[in-house]
């Protein structure tokens, strides 16, 4: 009901003058930012920087896609940052123990699956709020990761693994390819398969979904497992990128992921969301940071500007949606 409320609290209608801006989709806003930065700096449109940008947004983008599945069911997954840090430790540990790379990767992803299943178990069987169970694993996982590394880091010596994140394929950074590897199946899953539809149904009215014969519990499991597995996957990428396993990494990334998702139009009340939205959201955030760095904006101003831009972007996006209806 809250969703309808927000919609119906109509607010002021856009004035004519700046209506072009309102018409911009998120993609438009992103391109607009890029154009702007192209004018403001010489280095923005260099192939090197575009590569950097694509790399910088990649991990948040993948997390945001996973998070979106959960948010669509009207849930939340606060643990993703901790899962990233934790799985970076796991893979580093396995590699250090001499486990072959392929097995280490599979085992790490399997841990992601288990964590997600545990979240869903807490929600479905124990009746805990999603916020609480994922906050609890956030706390505990960081603790376990720190125990494993004894508060330190585990270096990764496997060259094949650490080179991966640096590699390019067809001129595009491999990290960005990983976004595509995640996004395409995610798109098919969410928008084209019936399981995706069930996520929306559960988020919209789980009782109605249940009465229609949708297995609400299974859908919940699916959503949380997908989110944690995406996080575990990002853990692998992070480990590859920074070459260490460290349990305190990726702190606060859960908020980044949620913010990307919400900027991309996902509603925290559930049943509204897409796969491309969070991707755009993540790259908008990455662009803001990249641009601020290129412009050598004082890092304190950078924070201020990021906050303001989030407001502006979401506001324009809201206006556009409202206009469309």
């Amino acid at each position, binding site marked *: 009901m809250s969703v309808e409320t927000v919609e119906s609290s109509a607010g002021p209608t856009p004035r004519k003058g700046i209506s072009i801006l309102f018409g911009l989709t998120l993609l438009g806003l992103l391109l607009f930012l890029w154009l702007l930065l192209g004018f403001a700096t010489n280095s923005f449109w260099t192939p090197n920087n575009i590569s950097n940008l694509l790399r910088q947004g990649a991990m948040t983008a993948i997390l945001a896609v996973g998070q979106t599945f959960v948010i669509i069911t009207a849930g939340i997954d606060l643990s993703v940052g901790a899962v990233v840090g934790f799985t970076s430790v796991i893979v580093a540990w396995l590699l250090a123990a001499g486990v072959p790379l392929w097995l280490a990767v599979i085992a790490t992803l399997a841990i992601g699956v288990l964590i997600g299943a545990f979240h869903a178990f807490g929600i479905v069987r124990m009746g805990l709020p999603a916020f609480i169970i994922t906050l609890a694993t956030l706390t505990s996982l960081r603790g376990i990761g720190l125990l494993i590394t004894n508060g330190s880091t585990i*270096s990764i010596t496997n060259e094949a693994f650490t080179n991966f994140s640096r590699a390019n394929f067809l001129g595009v950074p491999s990290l960005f390819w990983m976004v595509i590897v995640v996004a395409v199946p995610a798109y098919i899953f969410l928008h084209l398969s019936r399981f995706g539809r069930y996520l929306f149904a559960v988020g919209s009215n789980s009782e109605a979904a249940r009465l229609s014969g949708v297995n609400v519990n299974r859908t919940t499991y699916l959503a949380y497992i997908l989110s944690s597995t995406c996080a575990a996957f990002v853990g692998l990428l992070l480990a590859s990128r*920074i070459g260490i396993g460290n349990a305190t990494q990726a702190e606060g990334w859960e908020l980044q992921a949620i913010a990307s998702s919400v900027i991309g139009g996902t509603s925290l009340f559930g049943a509204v969301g897409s796969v491309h939205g969070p991707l755009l959201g993540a790259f908008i955030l990455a662009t803001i940071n990249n641009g601020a760095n290129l412009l050598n904006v004082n*890092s304190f101003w950078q924070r201020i500007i990021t906050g303001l831009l989030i407001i502006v972007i979401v506001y324009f996006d809201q206006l556009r949606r409202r206009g469309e209806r």
Partner: protein
Amino acid sequence: QDVTIPIIVKDTTSFYWQIVLAGARAAGKDLGVNVPELGAQSESDINGQISILENAVAGSPAAVVISPTEFKALGKPIDEAAKAVPIIGIDSAADSKAFTSFLTTDNVQGGRIAADGLAAAIKEATGKEEGEIAIITSLPGVGSLDQRREGFLDQMKTKYPGFKVVADKYADGQATTGLNMMTDLITANPNLVGVFASNLIMAQGVGQAIAENNLGDKIKVIGFDSDEKTVGFLKEGVLAGLVVQDPYRMGYDGVKTALAVSKGEKVEANVDTGANLVTKANMAEPKIDALLNPKVN
């Protein structure tokens, strides 16, 4: 083990402080003292450290070893605590006269050493003491990091006027953020010749960016503190140098001093445990090697 001497560090989740704790643990074992290892989970969590200090004092230990996370903020709480037990300070100072003894590294001095190291490395590569440099600080609002930055900038300004600091950045404590900042710095400042990454996590992230772009020859990076990864970078020539303190000794001697104090023995009021610049050239020296490979467990 009736005697209890808790040690309170700034951040238990960092390798540096784990070495301090390892030293304290070893001292505990050697001297037959029970050493609870305490500390906040982030260097910026001042309130957390105050609470931990309060709790530690409530347990009526023989003495407390603490590394105050913020100079001013820990002053009063330490005064308060010192009414009940002797307090030994390690690593950093606090605004209190109640310390019985101090074993510290001068972080400002550490920053100066980093500046000297950076200037030397750049001179070796380019033959000149000039060019564009940058500093990346892991987190704002952390006393020791502020002091390193201050020492570094001051030394650069007074001793090496040829260098121009083109970026003075603060990250959020994440290696990835340091990495991203560094790649963007490289893009935005093609003439960059040197960077000071003032703690372990930033050295890891910045080092990674240098390694990814194979710029070890062109951009000289000085890090602070060490672990396996950064030592590896040093060997590969990705990092030009590391400023290394002696955390193990701080921990060990801290507990040792505290025990002595609790027995009523007289101890030295101030001990400087020192900071050293480690480069590829001197890293094999036994003294340095011991610093780089502390016996953590």
